[in-house]
């Protein structure tokens, strides 16, 4: 059976997989993200990388939602309405040919604003502010993970980003948001809160 399919069955639904038990989550900053990108030779361009703005109003809503997982892509239409999520099984068909993307928006899912109101650029810390209208916006979740299958996950992120960049070069009017879902130093939490957050995250994600 294809290795990727096995990986999918094991871990696609959430990144709180048992294989990550030994990994201890910690706070990240732009340097640690850059180091990870360099280490795994991710083709990511700086301008596309975003993180959560703060812990309470940004990270927490994600943490309490179903959207804090990876590898997954969330797709939005020109009006910012949620169309669908793409995983490793559907990615080849959908990302190579946008005609195969779902047309009708999902009524009960949050719109793109849910994401863009909570993210800042990972280096500048500037709010997401892009007045341009895109035919599609792709939010690609990724994180600084370390576990046994990480190389396969990294390959998937690279594949996804590369094919979306090829679509852009071909003239497709799309926006790519590489959404890093790690805990961020930029939140500047008090020592007490840092400890509290780390304990909680490591307990629930590490389970």
């Amino acid at each position, binding site marked *: 059976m*294809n*290795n990727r399919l096995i990986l999918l069955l094991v871990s696609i639904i959430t990144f709180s997989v048992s294989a990550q038990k030994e990994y201890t989550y910690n706070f990240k900053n732009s340097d640690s993200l850059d180091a990870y990108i360099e280490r795994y030779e991710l083709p990511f361009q700086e301008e596309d990388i975003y993180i959560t703005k703060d812990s309470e109003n940004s990270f927490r809503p994600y943490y309490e939602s179903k959207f804090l997982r990876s590898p997954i892509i969330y797709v939005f239409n020109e009006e910012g309405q949620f169309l669908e999520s793409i995983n490793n099984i559907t*990615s*080849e*068909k959908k990302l*190579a040919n946008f005609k195969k993307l779902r047309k009708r928006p999902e009524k009960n899912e949050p719109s793109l604003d849910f994401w863009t109101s909570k993210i800042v650029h990972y280096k500048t810390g500037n709010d997401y502010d892009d007045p341009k209208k895109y035919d599609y916006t792709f939010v690609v979740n990724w994180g600084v993970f370390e576990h046994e299958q990480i190389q396969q996950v990294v390959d998937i992120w690279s594949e996804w980003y*590369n*094919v979306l960049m*090829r679509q852009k070069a071909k*003239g497709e009017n799309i926006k790519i948001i590489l959404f890093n879902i790690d805990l961020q130093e930029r939140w500047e939490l008090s020592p007490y809160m840092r400890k509290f957050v780390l304990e909680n995250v490591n307990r629930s994600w590490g389970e």
Partner: protein
Amino acid sequence: MRYLFIISFFLTACYSITAQNEVFKTNIQLIELEELKEEIFESEKEYKIAFIFNQFCPASRDIFPDLDKLYKNSIQKNFELFIISETKEKNKEDLKDHLFYYGYEEPFYILKDKPLLGFLKKTIQSICEGCDFKEMGYSSFIIFNKNNEVVVQTNYNHTEEELVSILEKYMQ
């Protein structure tokens, strides 16, 4: 001198813009089996590699990233690659999507006269009479030298590592 500088600056800028916006193109050709045979045997390259591919076969998919790396990194290009796809003519767009997704630029050939049954037998026997098609499958390949003699014929007993190692030797 100043003009030379301006022109060279302009050319460099143009090149950078082109490089950044380079549009990826897939390379799929529809061909009759006899025509393909002629292309292989008339090629002047030192080695001609005929690779049997099926986009839904895990073995084909697993080896292809390595083959792709070798193809893109080869300096001398002392070989010519013929990826013979089992894809039906009417499913050309599916193959195109597959190649676009992975960024595969290699020349893929879809046979116009693909038999309903016995693709491997007919195709392999046509390009290599002495090859044992019964031992070959998708991701197997035949390497011919310049004189169209078979140098290597792989079979399904080869591991992926062995196949990559053979390709490394000939895709320089």
